[in-house]
């Protein structure tokens, strides 16, 4: 156990109108995650707001910046951070609603149109054979829709209309294994400057993705697909 100082971003329209940081000293047990600490603090200050549901890294609702890095608060152990002061802030590049809560609607507006089918043949079934494009099964539908990647991406920061890494990764997934979706239409959808060509390969999205979706790599896959189609069209 150790005493850790938490610097927590606060903003609440009508209550805390100019954003500020509140400081809390918390006795942290070895097992405690950032989400545990927030819940402990909330007992004393019920106005502290944050999102969460599952507590085990599968719903993707508790994304936030901890010491400047995008993480899921529920699976981020405080002691393992190794810093005496822990800074907690809301995700970037999304409209801020209150304290650590950002509006996810713009994210889903980008993610939805790709219409990635969620039903899949299980990779564990003996008859489940990966499509030729996939080669071997890797868990790509692992996207938790947490939005961490959009927060980390320097391009989303300056182009609000950029589809962003998560939606592009979903698009790539549909192209790899359409399961009834119209793959050529999806390729067309991403083939523009707000689609897979906006990315500048900073790979920050893949760096922060909590579930190995590797959105950056998926964007490179889309580009390769588009380039080879264009070359084939020419020759």
């Amino acid at each position, binding site marked *: 156990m150790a005493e850790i100082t938490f610097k927590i971003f606060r903003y609440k329209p009508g209550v805390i109108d100019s954003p500020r940081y509140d400081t809390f000293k918390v006795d942290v047990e070895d097992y405690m995650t950032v989400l545990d600490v927030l819940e402990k603090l909330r007992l004393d200050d019920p106005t502290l707001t944050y999102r969460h549901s599952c507590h085990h890294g599968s719903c993707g609702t508790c994304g936030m910046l901890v010491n400047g890095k995008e993480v899921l608060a529920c699976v981020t152990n405080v002691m393992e951070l190794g810093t005496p002061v822990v800074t907690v802030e809301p995700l970037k590049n999304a409209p801020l609603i209150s304290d650590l809560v950002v509006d996810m609607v713009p994210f889903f507006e980008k993610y939805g149109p790709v219409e990635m089918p969620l039903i899949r043949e299980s990779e564990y079934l003996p008859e489940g054979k990966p499509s030729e494009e996939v080669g071997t099964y890797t868990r790509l539908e692992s996207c938790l829709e947490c939005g961490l990647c959009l927060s980390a991406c320097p391009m989303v920061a300056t182009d609000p209309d950029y589809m962003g890494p998560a939606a592009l990764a979903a698009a790539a997934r549909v192209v790899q294994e359409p399961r009834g979706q119209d793959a050529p239409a999806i390729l067309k959808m991403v083939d523009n400057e707000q689609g897979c060509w906006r990315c500048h390969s900073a790979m920050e999205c893949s760096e922060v993705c909590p579930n190995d979706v590797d959105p*950056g790599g998926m964007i490179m896959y889309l580009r390769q697909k588009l380039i080879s189609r264009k070359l084939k069209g020419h020759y």
Partner: protein
Amino acid sequence: MLAEEYKRPEPLWPKKRLGEWFSIAKKGAGGWAFLLHRLTGILLVLYLFLHFYVLSTLSRGANAYDNLTVLMESPFLLLLELGLVAVIVYHGLNGIRLMLLTLNVGVKQQKEMFWVVMAITILTTIIAALFMF
């Protein structure tokens, strides 16, 4: 309060933040590669204009140009020139790395590729320094 009565507060929309390009809160090697590529790209464009200016002195006769080249011997300008070598080598090599990535080549090795780019850049700069000083 009924759900219908609840009026959702207007969210605080983030401004477009150019600062994110140059922020040093990078999460990985790829982020640093991006930052350096952008900086060196901008420096190269600025240098291009400087280069045009230096060459344009030729139109004012051999003397004007020669006077400038004498200036170039100063240790400070030599140091800047050494910086230019690093900038060119980095931008060119990382440019190749970026083009490979776009072709979906070596995406899994993108960090290692960045370290190779950095190593060659540093090595070339050291060799250039040995020649220049």
